Structure formats: C-alpha cells, structure tokens
C-alpha cells in the first residue's frame, strides 16, 4: 500500500501544478495563452518539458523491455540515433517554425502549410492524418496508467480504476492549465525521470552485487553473450532506425511545443543538452534491461527467461495460441518494475513508481495538441472563431480535451493493448514519412500544395499497407522470414518475426525516400504558389 500512497501524492502534486498554472494565467480566454502558454516559456522549462514531451512510456519501460530481449543494441537503435537527429531537427526546423509562429501567429503546422501553399482542404487532410496517427499514443498512455497503478498497488487497484484515475488527473491539469500547466508538469516529470534513472541504477546495481559481475556472467555464457553485442540485428536494420527519429519534429505535440518558447535563444541550450538528457535516461534503462537477464533470483524474471527458452527451442511444435501466450510471458515491458520490487525497499518502490507514472502520463501534451489542432485547423478555419468568437474557441478546446480523454479511456478498457502497441510502431514510420512536408515548406521555394497532398496520402497509404501486410502474413519463427518478390537475389518485401522489411531495410526507409521523391516530382509538375507568398517565406 505504501507505494500506492506515494504515487497518489505524486498525482496530487501534478494536479496542483496544473491548477497553479491556471491561476497564473492572466488571459484565460485567449487561444494563444491556453494552447501555447502565451509563447512565453523560459529556457529551463522549455528544455525539460520538450524532452519530457518526447519521452513517452516507451523511453523508460519499453526500452528496458527491448534491451532485456535484444541487448545493448537498443541504445544504438533508439537513443544515440535520436540524440543526433532530434537536436538537428530542432536546430533547422524548430527554430524556423518558431520564427514563423511569432511573425504570423501560427499555432499549428497546418496553419503554416495552408498559408505557405495557399490551400484549405488539403490542410484538413493533413490534420486528419496527423490526428489518426496520434490517437493510439493517448490510448497507450491511459492503458499504461492503469497497468502501473495495478502493479504498484499489488493488484488492489483494478486496471479500470487505475486507468480512470490517471485519465482524470491528466484531463484536469490539461483542462485547467492548458499548455502552461502541461509544460510545467512535463518539466517536473523530466526531473523525476532523471532522478529515477540514477536511483534505480544504484539500488538495483547494489542488489545484484555490482554490474561488473552481472556483465561478466552474461559474457561468459554463450546463450547470453550476444546480448552484449549487436549480432542479433543486421547492419541494414540498424541503419534503418536512424530514419525513425525524423518523426519526432513531425509529431504535432512537438512542433506545436516549439512555438511556446519566449525567445529563439531558448533553443540553443535545448539543442546542446538534448543528447546529454538522452544519455542520462536511456543508458540506465537499457543497461538495467540487459543485466536483468542475470536476475534469475527474481521469480517473475525467471519465468520470462523460461518462456523465451521454450519459444526458442520448441517453436516448431507449439500451436499459434501457445506461441502468443509465451511471447506475452516473455515480454519485458515490466522488467524495471520487477527489478525494483525485488531489490528496492517499499518506500523507494513508491517513489520510483511515481517516476514510472510520470513516463506513462506523457499523453498530456498529445491530448492538448489534438485539441489545438481541432480548434485551430478545423473550428477556426471553418469560420467557427469568426462566428462565435475567441472565448468560444477556447471553450471548444476545453470540451475537446474532455471528449478525447473519455473516448481514449473507453477504448483502453475494451481493446487489447497489443493493437495500440502496433499502431504506435506504425505511427513513427508514418510521421517520418511526413517529414518532406516541413522540409519542403521551409526550405524549398518550388514546393506546392499538390506535392504536400501526395506526401500525406502516400504516408497514410504506406502505413495502412504495412499494417495489412503484417496482419495477413503470419509471424514466422524467430530468425526466419517469408519473402515476396526478388531483386538481386534479395526478397523485395519480407515478413520477419520483428515486423516487415523491404530489401532488408525497415519500411520507414522506402517510406521516407518515396515521400521525398513525391514531394519533388509532384511539385515540379504543378503550379507553384504566388510569388508574393513565396517572398514572405524566403
């Protein structure tokens, strides 16, 4: 019960921060104040909050689980590639978007696209695709809240109650505090992440008798030595992952957050320190995930290792249902919680549980971003603001926050999490494929609205195609693949245990390259925007 009490104290704190932000707001009926904190965030809150907004439950829980199954490769795949690409995209795109927002009053990327390419309904298509790709994240956040509350309370708090509590807290501070409340809560949560990583590393390391010993034991066993190398993935697969962080700046909640800085100077520290924040969060998470393979004295982890062993050795004789059950048992998303339960004292489990809760509550900025997109790109664009006024627009935003939270909660109760886990994976590739929209709008005079439409439709079609392909073709045994077509002796499209590959690459690579090609070819074939419009941007 002690850990649950600590988590409740944490939830009360974030609620207070949201309400405090509401009290600090002096222009509550102004859209810019509610949705963008009046473009007034200071440098520390901007850095911590932007980083926290980017770090979802996956950074803490998923990365440990991935490292538990795949080894140290997780850090290179997800952390060091993001440490390079995300600051670069903030440097080149975030700063320009900030300046355009300040100059022309843009509050969403679609407002900029509509102006830059002189279009209306094409902007609506972009908004819809962005929103559809974002919704699974919100649902995953609610599910993560329910699961974590259930685990931390030792099963006393059922999933539906835990999910409802987390959804209510998030909804309340987003509803009252808007962007200001969300940013402050995110800054607070990032501080918790950083503390959490350090404490968890120390406590678990001491409990395991030192990491040196754990690493030596892993290295000396042929079954686990591969976890300390990258031989479980191919170089092409590893390379493909450098395309995934392109999605970061294309996520509406990230690009909208770029508009909240008071001064463009605030990006400087964020760009420089972002890689260090990645290191501080991901290294402990990945390292703990890898070394958990030696924590055989933890019964839950031993059960996972046995399930993994059965899958590897008896895959041919198992029925599909048994395989699904064993995969679920072997999954490592709760590995960090299991390690803490075993090695940390009770009060510390609660504190660290609050840190985990901070990670799973990252859906706040996504809810707010959806609300901003709806009120600005749909309500205001289709004359709602002109007819009913700005106060009605803010009220619409409030109502939308409540509606989207309720819908996410209801879906979270009825549908299995695996569907949304998969949808989130596709969303990364989908957003990466939308990157040519931002690059074309900000850096290429000749880009056109038809090029933008082609990019958007291609991204949506490609995501659907990969999803259908993966649901139609059964998952092969680990290490095997089912190929279709052939080019230079290599299967063009393959179904692997991990997903789909195209000529050995992840689908994100052809998705981004074709998307860029479409932007260029279609733009060159269609009339460019007015010279006066182009002059305002270049």
């Amino acid at each position, binding site marked *: 019960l002690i850990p649950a009490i600590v988590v409740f104290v944490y939830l009360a704190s974030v609620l207070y921060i949201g309400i405090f932000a509401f009290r600090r707001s002096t222009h509550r009926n102004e859209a810019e104040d509610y949705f963008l904190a009046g473009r007034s965030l200071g440098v520390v809150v901007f850095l911590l909050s932007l980083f926290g907004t980017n770090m979802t439950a996956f950074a803490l829980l998923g990365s440990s689980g991935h490292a538990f199954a795949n080894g*140290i490769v997780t850090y290179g795949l997800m952390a060091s590639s993001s*440490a390079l690409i995300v600051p670069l995209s903030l440097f080149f795109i975030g700063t320009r978007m900030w300046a355009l927002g300040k100059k022309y009053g843009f509050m969403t990327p679609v407002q900029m696209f509509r*102006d830059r390419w002189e279009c209306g309904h094409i902007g609506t298509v972009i908004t819809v695709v962005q929103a559809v790709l974002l919704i699974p994240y919100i649902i995953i956040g609610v599910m993560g809240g329910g699961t974590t509350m259930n685990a931390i309370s030792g099963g006393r708090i059922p999933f539906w109650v835990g999910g409802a509590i987390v959804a209510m807290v998030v909804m309340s501070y987003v509803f009252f505090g808007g962007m200001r409340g969300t940013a402050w809560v995110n800054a607070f949560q990032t501080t918790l992440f950083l503390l959490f990583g350090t404490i968890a590393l120390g406590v678990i390391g001491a409990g395991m008798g030192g990491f040196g010993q754990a690493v030596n034991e892993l290295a000396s066993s042929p079954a686990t*030595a591969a976890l300390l*190398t990258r031989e479980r993935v191919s170089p092409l697969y590893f390379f493909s992952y450098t395309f995934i962080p392109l999605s970061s700046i294309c996520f509406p909640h990230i690009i909208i957050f770029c508009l909240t800085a008071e001064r463009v100077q605030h990006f400087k520290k964020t760009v420089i320190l972002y890689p260090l924040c990645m290191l501080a969060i991901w290294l402990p998470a990945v390292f703990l995930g890898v070394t958990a393979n030696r924590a055989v004295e933890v019964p839950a982890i031993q059960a996972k290792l046995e399930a993994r062993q059965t899958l590897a050795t008896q895959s041919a004789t198992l029925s599909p249902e048994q395989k699904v059950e064993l995969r679920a048992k072997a999954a490592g998303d709760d590995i960090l919680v299991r390690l803490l339960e075993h090695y940390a004292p009770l009060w510390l489990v609660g504190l660290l549980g609050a840190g985990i809760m901070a990670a799973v509550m990252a859906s706040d900025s996504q809810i707010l971003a959806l609300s901003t997109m709806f009120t600005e790109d749909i309500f*205001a664009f289709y004359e709602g603001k002109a007819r009913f006024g700005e106060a009605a627009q803010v009220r619409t935003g409030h109502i939308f926050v409540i509606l989207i939270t309720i819908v996410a909660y209801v879906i979270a109760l009825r549908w299995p999490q695996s569907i949304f886990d998969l949808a989130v994976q596709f969303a990364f590739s989908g957003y990466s494929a939308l990157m040519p929209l931002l690059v074309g709008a900000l850096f290429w005079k000749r880009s056109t609205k038809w090029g933008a439409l082609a990019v958007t439709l291609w991204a949506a079609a490609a995501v659907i195609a990969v999803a259908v392909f993966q649901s139609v073709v059964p998952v092969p045994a680990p290490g095997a693949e089912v190929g279709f077509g052939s080019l230079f002796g290599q299967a063009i499209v393959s179904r692997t245990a991990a997903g789909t590959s195209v000529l050995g690459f992840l689908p994100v690579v052809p998705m981004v390259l074709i998307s860029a090609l479409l932007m260029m070819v279609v733009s060159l074939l269609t009339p460019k925007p007015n010279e006066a*419009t182009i002059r305002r941007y270049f």
Partner: protein
Amino acid sequence: LLVSKGFLNANRVRIKTMKGLWLALLVVVLYALHQDTWFWRAVQPVVLGFLPVGLFYHVCYTLAVCGVMWLLVKFAWPSHLESGRVNAPRSVAPSPHRPISAEEDAAP
C-alpha cells in the same frame, strides 16, 4: 573605399560559406559514425569493468553529438530569426489562409 568594402564583404561571405561546409561535413561524418560495424560482434574490452565496448562506443558517440551541437550553435546559429523575422518585413499583406492576430485586426 567601395572596392575595399566589397572585397571585405566577399571575404566574409566566403569564410561563412566555408564554415558552413565544414560543419555540414562534420554532421555527415557523425551520421556515418553511427553505423559502427567495427564493434558489431565485440564484447571485449569491457570498459570500466561493466560497459561492453559496443555500448561504450555509443555513449562516447552521444557525447560527441553534444560537442557538434555546441559547434553548430556557436558557428551556424540562424541569428536572423532572433528578431522574430524569417526573411520578410512585417508590413507584408496578410494571407487569407493564416490566422490574423488581434494586433493586426485592430490596425487601420
């Protein structure tokens, strides 16, 4: 005087372009260094007694990224954005597609 001013300006532009090219090259090299096939199957040496060399490399890589970002901010910062301007003056007529700020609404 005009000729020497022109020469100085041309020189400044050339230095700026060279600096930009070097920084672009640095970023490309850094991107390539992420694909470290040389430590692909190596466990040893275990650095500091607990970090396998493949992981240690990527920790160092992250620190190197931090350094390169500092160089970018120091030498290639888009300072023209600091005034809130992109490239054009504020007086340009607003587009019918973008939101009009209250300040512009009130303008005669």
